[in-house]
Structures are given as C-alpha cells and as structure tokens.
C-alpha cells in the first residue's frame, strides 16, 4: 500500500508541475487563436498532427464534422481548423 502512496504522490507532484508549466505557456483563449494553432494543439491530444495535404477540401469537411463530434471540439475550433487545412493542403 505504501508503494501505491509513493507512486500516487510522485505522480501528483509531477502532474502539478507540468500543469504549472502549461499555465505559463498558455497565451490566448481559443477564440483568439488561428486555425494553425488550434490544429497543433487539439489533434495531438489523441493522435499525431495530420498532414493537410493528405486529403482534399471536401474530405477535410467530412473529417472535420466527424472530429468535431468524436473529439468534442467546439464549433469555433473545428471551423478554424478545417479552414486552415483547406488553405494549406
């Protein structure tokens, strides 16, 4: 049991530190961010950042709607991300 407590405590301290670091790193709310920023920050939460060139504009609209629902992204976020993908693909 003590081993579990030690691991839990170390984990909590570690998570606290990385959260602090991230607090410092954050700059702007999502509404002020560009599609490129949101693409870099949100896709990576589950998988690697996708390459825009791998799909065409129409595909990105379908993928965008799918990811909006599956990954619980806000409307503002997905609109900007899809627009960015369509611009640079």
């Amino acid at each position: 049991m003590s081993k579990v407590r030690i691991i839990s405590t170390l984990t909590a301290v570690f998570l606290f530190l990385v959260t602090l670091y991230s607090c410092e790193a954050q700059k702007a709310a999502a509404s002020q961010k560009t599609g490129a920023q949101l693409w870099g920050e949100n896709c990576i939460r589950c998988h690697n950042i996708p390459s825009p060139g791998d799909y065409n504009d129409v595909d990105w609209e379908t993928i965008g709607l799918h990811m909006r629902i599956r990954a619980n992204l806000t409307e503002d976020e997905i609109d900007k991300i899809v627009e960015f993908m369509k611009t640079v693909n």
Partner: protein
Amino acid sequence: MKIITTGGLLLALFLGQELFGQAFKPSKTQFMIRGYGHSGLNYEQIDDNDADLSFVGATFAPIFLFKHSDRLLFEAELEFELEDGEVKVGFEYADFNYVLNKYITVRAGKFLLPFGTFVERLHPAWINRLSTLPLGFGHDGIAPGSGIGVELRGAAPVGSGKINYSLYMVNGPVLVTSAMDPEEAGMLRFENFEDNNGNKAVGGRLGILPLSNSSVELGVSFYNGIAGDAGGEYENVAARLYAFDFSYVKQISAIKGILDIKAQYTKSNVANANYYELSPGDTIPTSYTFTNSSNAYFGQLSYRPSMASGFIKNIEVVGRYSSLSTPEGAEWEQEASQVAFGVNYWLSWRSVLKFSYQVTESVGGHGNAGSSRRTGMYAHWALGF
C-alpha cells in the same frame, strides 16, 4: 492553318475545363472510408511453458463516414480480424449524428461510450502507443465499450479553457448468471442488443480543459443501470460504474519533444446477489455470494523528440503500468498487474512500427486459483487511413 490550330487548342481547353470541372465538382453529400489496420508478430510465454511465436493480426477496421449535410453525419465501423482460425467480424458502431446547435449534438444508434477516454479515443491500433490494451479493457474488461441508445454531447468554451460533455441512455449491462456461464457469474456484459429488463442505463462524462492550449484534460464518467433480467431472481441487481481520466499532451521546447501522459481509473460496483456452483460429485448446486466490486487503472507516458533532426524525431518511447482487481470470492477473482515498455518508429503521422515488451503477473482468473507470469514481445505495424 495557324488560326485553325489555335482555335482547336482553345476548344480543347474549354471542353477539358468543363469536363474536368464537372468531374471534380463536389457534391452536397460526401461518402468517405477511413479506418485502420495492423499486423504483427507476437512472442508470448506463460511461466516456464513453451513459448508461442506467431504472426498475428491482419486486422482491417474500415470506418464509413456519410456526411449528409453540414449537420448530419452517419458513421459506422466494422472490424475484421483473424482469431481462433477464422475471420471474426465485429460490428463496432453505427450511429447517426445531428448537430442541433453550437453546443449540442444528438447521437443515436450503436456508439462507443465515452466512459473514460481509452475506448472512445485511444483504442485504434494506430493511435494506441502499444500493441496491447491496458488491463481492464477488451475481453474480461470491466469498462463498457459500446452501447445502443441515444446521446447528447458537445463542447463549449469557458473562460480561457473549455468543457466537453456527454449524457447518454443505452440498453445497459447484462448480469451474467450461473445458468448463463458459471465461471463468469456476476460479471457484466455490455453488448446488450435487446434490453433484458426495460431499464435503461444512464451514463455520461464531463471533461474539463482548464488551459487555453488544451494540453490538460480531466474527465469524470459514470454509468448506472439495472443489470439483471426482468422478472427473475436478479431483477433488482444494479450496476454502478464510474471513472476518472487524465490527459496531458504538449510539445515542450525544454525537452525538445512531445510529452504524452494518459491515465484512467475505473471502478465497477454491482449489487450483491447469490450465485450457484456445482461441486464435483454433488447433484444439487450450492449458493455463494461475494462483494461484487472491481477496479482497474492504467497510467501511460510517452515521449517523442519531435524537435530533433533526422530519423530521431520519428522515434517514440512509451511505458505503461496497468492493474486489474476483480471480486474476491468470484469464480473470476483476479489480481493482475502489467508493465509494458515500447519503442515506436513513426513512418508518417498515421503509420507506426511498434516494438514492445510486456510482463503481466496475475493471481486467479477463470478457474485458475494459481499465479502466473506472462511475458510478451510484440512487433506490430499499424496504419490509419
């Protein structure tokens, strides 16, 4: 002659543009096949027994997306895999999604349950950083994977962060009785295609992303419902499950790479009930009961030096610890822990070669009161498309 040639070229260009433009004019509705596949080599050994070395997988999991409009999407996933000498087909999900407004999407059909994050977001082979699932998921797992019903979900900005939510009603779990399977009496099965008691399970998840860069997500989930058959001995046996999940993903310049941490704790409580066993030589079964509580958790950390140069930036190291504890006194009583380490090489953002080593130590399990140590080495190739 020159005029005729030039005129011909212009006509050809005009016709070509018309034909080309027509051929690639996007339609209002879109159909897409996405999905993933994987294959690999497994080496597994239990205690000092002979080891198994086998090519496995060749799993093909197509995901069908039909975008009917900017608000309506239908999604479905099949999973073809080779298992026990035959092709096994899984019907993972098939559901309608309709975006009601900025904050609410309604979903209906068979869908992956947002109970924690592993099943809904992380289980596909090209997303899962290791070749195996953590303890507590998959076969003999305690976490629900999918359900048939209806769900409301969405996300909204809150301050500089955001929240996401899900609230669903599904057919719910089925309690395994001694008559169904004596070795699994008291377990829950979540593939309840036709409700066995008319009581719908209610569940949901709330995710909080407190930071504007979305690097941290904390989630809490619940899932409650009656599990026993209506009109029978177990008609009041209820199941109450909850889970906590954590995610931290960020590219950190100080360590020149991406740090990815995932964790989930799952707890399952099923009301006490009597089950029956037939001892050797007996003709009348004897009843027994136990405190039907299980828990499972995992923590995973991976690091990829994405800011390095050359092939180094494609390498990722990953470690995961997971644990499963099932009820003492049950036929499926088990205490298990697992440690897994892996090295991945990313061929592209969606194609990965995974090499891992894993040790699982367990006591108990189906009809086995002894302890065992299972070691495994895995080399898999996964591809998302």
